[in-house]
């Protein structure tokens, strides 16, 4: 494991690395006592589980939504590619998207067609899986406003498409939600839902639940007031809007609202937990992932950080930012909420994925929701009522000292609280969190959650922030550097039942790609310097890797082709908050550049170059 002391000139980093050399850094060792159990992933189209074996015939081989199933497992029941033969995996087709920025999405596979979407300008391509070379059947360019590129905080990414009932749904950077006929590529409807002049953009992948297209906005660094909207999938009509700040009627908190903890109970907390009117520009956007439980008919998702980052100007809990919501998809009505990071002080957005599974906990099977959260803890929660069953750190955390399971409250470390005009050092995790948006995968066969994440710490100094609509509203100087151990990322296997790490594959660079797990007991992920890797999902043994053209920040998928064979697909294309440091229009002589991104990956320009290319592999 290379020591990355040369990345920073700070003595501190050198000390950390020295410590690591002594401690032997490679921790990819299976835990002999790990439990594989007989937990079932019973939600949505997740495979049925019996005695730990997954029936691959129960998996139709498609990938019709970003996380494969409503439960967001990103688990494929396909078994053809396994630990024995994965060494023979080879690319069978590539496709250049013509876009250069961060490719943070997963391809979709519906029937015999693959659909991909590019970062700005958000072009959608349909590729014919029945023909050699996967030729394009059609493409659709929504032509987003050029100026929208200047409003996106963290590269002009797009996190994907969703398919339902013959249509594809996606968002454009300039705040349109568009439905396309999946066969012809012709637009069915288009709805303008936000305004770049207010700092709003859209980057998230929609989910369709119960005929409602669920969408959210980006712009928490621009003084945007965040929301989630439900659109009718046939007409594009906005059925409801749930704001994430402001009075209960705007947040769609009503008679059905039953939050578990006292901290989340009370009237109009979205107003009273802010200074007057600060909630109107308070962030709480929604640019991440949504899960759906059809049995409960509830969607689950979290909201982003409050704005500005300078927290001293917004005393209070700042509800409902960095908050997990359970809502009815048809009305948007909130059923429960839980604020993960009340009065967030470190940009710990709460937009990460939640995996819905049923787990034996304390002698009984619980309907749980698992969230590897940006603040550094894996939350296991009862998804029927919002109770936190456990919250264990999955990396080095000193910004807080755990979660009080009685009150549900995050226990902040006052020593790490940013102050105006004072540099507070060695805050862990850094602003992108222990994990940013990059989604985990869960295998019901191994019972493990595979978490791609960062290992970064930071120095912070609060600044005064000046709200000017449509421009950044942050008020923070951030300098990031590697966390303890010196490796800036890892792919970690986590046992949600025990709340413990099973093993971790350490990576020099932050792991900014998603993961996929398969019933062949493989886990695929990519690195920011462009290695696409397969590891053994049980032992973490490295089994295969392939160097793609550009750094990987996309999400891999496994699917069954029209020929019945198993395929693996992944986007290459460096970008995103940290990946953007590879772009030529960013200077790296200032570690504070891009809210600290430059300090996190000052070496990235020498390790990869821009370029969006789809890769498809098979045996």
């Amino acid at each position, binding site marked *: 494991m290379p020591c990355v002391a040369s990345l920073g000139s700070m003595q501190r980093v050198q000390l950390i690395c020295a410590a690591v050399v002594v401690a032997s850094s490679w921790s990819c060792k299976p835990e002999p006592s790990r439990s594989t159990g007989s937990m079932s992933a019973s939600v949505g189209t997740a495979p049925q589980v019996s005695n730990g074996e997954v029936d691959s015939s129960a998996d139709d081989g498609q990938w019709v939504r970003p996380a494969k199933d409503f439960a967001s497992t990103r688990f494929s029941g396909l078994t053809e590619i396994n630990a024995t033969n994965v060494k023979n995996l080879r690319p069978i087709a590539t496709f250049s998207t013509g876009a250069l920025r961060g490719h943070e999405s997963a391809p979709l596979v519906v029937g015999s067609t693959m659909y991909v979407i590019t970062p700005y300008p958000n072009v959608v391509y349909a590729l014919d899986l029945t023909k050699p070379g996967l030729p394009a059947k059609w493409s659709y360019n929504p032509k987003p406003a050029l100026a929208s590129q200047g409003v996106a905080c963290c590269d002009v990414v797009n996190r994907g498409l969703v398919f339902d009932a013959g249509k594809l749904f996606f968002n454009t950077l300039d705040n349109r939600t568009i439905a396309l006929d999946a066969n012809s590529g012709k637009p069915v409807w288009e709805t303008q839902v936000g305004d770049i002049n207010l700092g709003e953009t859209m980057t998230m992948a929609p989910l369709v639940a119960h005929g409602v297209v669920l969408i959210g906005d980006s712009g928490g*660094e621009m003084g945007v007031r965040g929301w989630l909207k439900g659109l009718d999938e046939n007409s594009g009509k906005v059925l409801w809007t749930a704001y994430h700040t402001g009075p209960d009627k705007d947040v769609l908190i009503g008679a059905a609202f039953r939050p578990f903890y006292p901290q989340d109970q009370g009237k109009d907390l979205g107003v009273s937990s802010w200074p007057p009117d600060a909630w109107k520009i308070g962030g709480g956007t929604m640019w991440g992932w949504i899960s759906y439980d059809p049995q409960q008919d509830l969607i689950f998702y979290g909201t982003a950080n409050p704005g500005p980052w300078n927290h001293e100007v917004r005393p209070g809990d700042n509800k409902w930012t960095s908050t997990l919501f359970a809502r009815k998809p048809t009305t948007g009505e909130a059923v429960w909420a839980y604020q993960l990071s009340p009065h967030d002080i470190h940009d710990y957005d709460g937009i990460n994925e939640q995996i819905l599974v049923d787990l034996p906990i304390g002698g009984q099977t619980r309907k749980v929701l698992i969230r590897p959260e940006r603040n550094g803890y894996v939350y296991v929660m009862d998804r029927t009522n919002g109770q936190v069953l456990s919250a264990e750190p999955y990396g080095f955390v000193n910004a807080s000292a755990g979660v009080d399971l009685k009150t549900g409250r995050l226990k902040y470390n006052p020593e790490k609280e940013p102050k105006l005009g004072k540099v507070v050092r060695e805050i862990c995790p850094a602003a992108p969190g222990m994990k940013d948006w990059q989604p985990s995968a869960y295998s019901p066969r191994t019972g493990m959650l595979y978490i791609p994440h960062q290992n970064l710490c930071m120095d912070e100094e609060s600044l005064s922030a*000046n709200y000017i609509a449509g*421009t*950044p*509203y942050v008020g923070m100087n951030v300098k990031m550097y590697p966390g303890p151990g010196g490796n800036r990322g890892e792919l970690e296997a986590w046992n949600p039942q025990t709340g413990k790490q099973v093993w971790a594959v350490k990576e020099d660079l932050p792991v900014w790609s998603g993961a996929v797990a398969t019933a062949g007991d493989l886990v695929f992920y990519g690195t920011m310097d462009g290695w696409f890797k397969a590891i053994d999902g049980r032992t973490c043994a490295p089994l295969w890797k392939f160097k793609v053209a550009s750094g990987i920040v996309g999400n891999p998928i496994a699917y069954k082709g029209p020929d019945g064979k198993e395929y693996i697909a992944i986007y290459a294309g460096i970008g995103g908050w940290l990946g*953007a440091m590879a772009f030529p*229009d960013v200077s790296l002589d200032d570690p504070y*550049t*891009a809210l600290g991104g430059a300090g996190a990956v000052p070496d990235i320009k020498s390790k990869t170059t821009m370029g969006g290319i789809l890769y498809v592999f098979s045996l």
Partner: protein
Amino acid sequence: MSSRSRIALVVGALAIVACEVPDHPNKASSQPVSTFSIGPQPGPDRALAVAVNPYHGDKSVVADGRRWFNYYNCSGCHGDHAGGGMGPSLRDSTWFYGGEEHSIFASISEGRQYGMPAWGTKIPPDQIWRIVTYIKTLRTPDEPDPPR
């Protein structure tokens, strides 16, 4: 605001700017005023009128320029020391719309199509020139508060 009224505002701001900018010494009377050339100038006569920075090389306004650079959130997009981020780096040698002082002034005042806001409606010309003067010191010994 409609796009038409927005344009009208910007044009109005530019007219004010033109009034306050000293005439270029080479300006010929037959040429249009307040012409900020970004692209190449066709034809034999390339002496188009350009605005001149009244603070050109004036070190006494540089710190003030940096202050406005932060105040108007330029730093939010271009970085605390203008190394880039949401917007491009201003520290490097690449200038999409020209690196001359009058071109930088025009980019700030008029905005640019890839997302640079038109600040001419918001920032007085005098402050824009101070910001321009600061930007021209980046990566020079005169840069105030350089990155560490």
